[in-house]
């Protein structure tokens, strides 16, 4: 039996909360979900392996999720769980940090693995742009960890499960941030994380117009177009949703074709799980070649047109 008793979960989205619930059930003896949502959503968490639900009530349009930090902080101090798992969305990261600081502790961030060992929680997460994985352990009574999508798989609903839903009174925050408006994010709908093939462009492209070649090749290969950070941030040649790397998309396609990308560590961490890596770069010393399966040391402006011709011929 695990030495960790009370594990709590909190997430912005219900599907993430269900995943964290499953993880909490593996790690601890008693699972509690902190839920801002409808009563039905709160009760659903019992079926998804929570023993208790701390129900913050129905969402209110005038309140931000962050307005509940004081309410959750009070609960933590009163109930003293051993572990709180939080979804690392932008809001989740802010809330995790504020709760941790309130308790006088750090956050074990972006845990790819959590285990309970010698009376404490051990986490594994990526550091130095993916150059290494760090194992850390928490030394405090309550540990806060953020766990991303895919680490745990949600359990199927069990309608027979019984649990308790506890309604929690709202604690008014001392400092309020006023939301005056919302804009739909200008974004293209790309999901590089799920792409099977990716043709990715980097600074080796000297003109924005040349990216057309990569787009044409991607079309022929039935691939998505990705890019390195400077192409999306700085040059703004491609939307940010196409950026692959540590602070962008972490991809795992069957085939990743990097064109004009030197392969800095921050980029490589985003692509290291690709099954096959192909590189085209004119610099023989580019680090990308050290981690490529296939490659050409050559000028992309000469190689790409030839490659496009060959894929066109193959289609016919």
């Amino acid at each position, binding site marked *: 039996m695990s030495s960790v008793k009370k594990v709590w979960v909190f997430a912005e989205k219900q599907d993430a909360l269900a995943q964290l619930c499953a993880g909490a059930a593996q790690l601890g003896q008693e699972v509690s979900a902190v839920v801002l949502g409808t009563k039905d959503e709160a009760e659903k968490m019992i079926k998804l392996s929570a023993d208790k639900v701390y129900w913050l009530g129905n969402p209110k349009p005038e309140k931000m999720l962050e307005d509940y930090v004081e309410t959750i902080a009070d609960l933590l101090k009163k109930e003293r769980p051993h572990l709180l798992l939080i979804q690392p969305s932008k809001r989740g990261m802010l809330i995790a940090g504020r709760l941790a600081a309130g308790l006088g502790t750090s956050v074990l961030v972006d845990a790819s693995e959590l285990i309970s060992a010698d009376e404490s929680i051990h986490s594994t997460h990526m550091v130095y742009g993916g150059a290494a994985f760090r194992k850390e352990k928490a030394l405090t009574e309550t540990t806060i960890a953020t766990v991303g999508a895919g680490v745990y798989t949600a359990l199927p609903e069990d309608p027979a499960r019984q649990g308790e839903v506890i309604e929690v009174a709202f604690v008014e925050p001392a400092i309020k941030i006023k*939301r005056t408006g919302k804009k739909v994010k200008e974004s293209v709908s790309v999901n590089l994380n799920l792409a099977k093939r990716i043709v990715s462009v980097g600074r080796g492209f000297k003109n924005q117009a040349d990216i057309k070649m990569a787009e044409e090749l991607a079309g022929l290969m039935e691939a998505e177009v990705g890019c390195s950070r400077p192409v999306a941030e700085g040059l703004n040649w491609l939307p940010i949703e196409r950026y692959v790397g540590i602070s962008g998309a972490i991809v795992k396609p069957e085939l990743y074709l990097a064109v004009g990308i030197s392969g800095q560590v921050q980029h490589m961490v985003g692509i290291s799980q690709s099954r096959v890596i192909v590189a085209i770069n004119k610099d023989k010393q580019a680090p990308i070649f050290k981690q490529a399966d296939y490659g050409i040391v050559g000028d992309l402006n000469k190689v790409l047109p030839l490659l496009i011709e060959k894929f066109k011929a193959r289609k016919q």
Partner: protein
Amino acid sequence: MKVIVCYKIVPEEQDIVVLKDRNLSFDRAEWKIGEFDLNAIEAGMQIAGAAGGNVTALSIGGKKLESSKLKKAVLSRGPQDLYLVIDEQIGEADSFLTALALKGAIDKMGSYDVVLCGEGSSDLYAKQVGSQLGQLLNVATINAVSKITPDGDQLIVERTLENEVEILEITLPAVISVTTDINEPRIPGMKEIMAAGKKPVTQWSIADIGLQKSAKSTEIISTLAPEQADRKQIILEGESEEVVEKLFENICSELH
């Protein structure tokens, strides 16, 4: 408007060497300002440019911070002065201890309107210090800010979340963490680098800021490079028809 910009110095990623036992060596690493902190420094300069006021830079860390090159690197980007808290043990501080040290320094520095942090440090990328610092200072705290517009005694900011951008009014003082695409950080010229050498630098120890060597809340067990995937390493040279044909065949052999 009195702006404080926080930054961390980090080892140059390309200089990190993976040893045989998969530990990392930083012995040959150059140190630099964290890449994402450059956005915080630039955002500070733009706020002061728009609203008037001044920008002070602040960092905590080990002895590497004393390098005059690194001091010039931050001051040449615009801040009028620099505060450093230097202690060898604090170089490896976790996010809470880092936030606590920054709070200690800021309390001692006096009044401020805005503290800016980057999205995360480019070495550990925990994306935590700004949120924790704001809580410790007990002021308005927000992250993921992609646009800042000064408006009288408050700031109007845009915050870029996963699926939407929200517009917020932030009362001051506040701690704000900015995104990596909020601006294009300036590249200082020779004139700015020369002038940076003359700007005042205040150096404190952790005792000066009243920080007890408090117990760490986390302990590092190990930091090891991942086992590398075996790659085929079939690299050709040149742009001839034959070379491209070979690459084409190689790619096709992997497409199912």
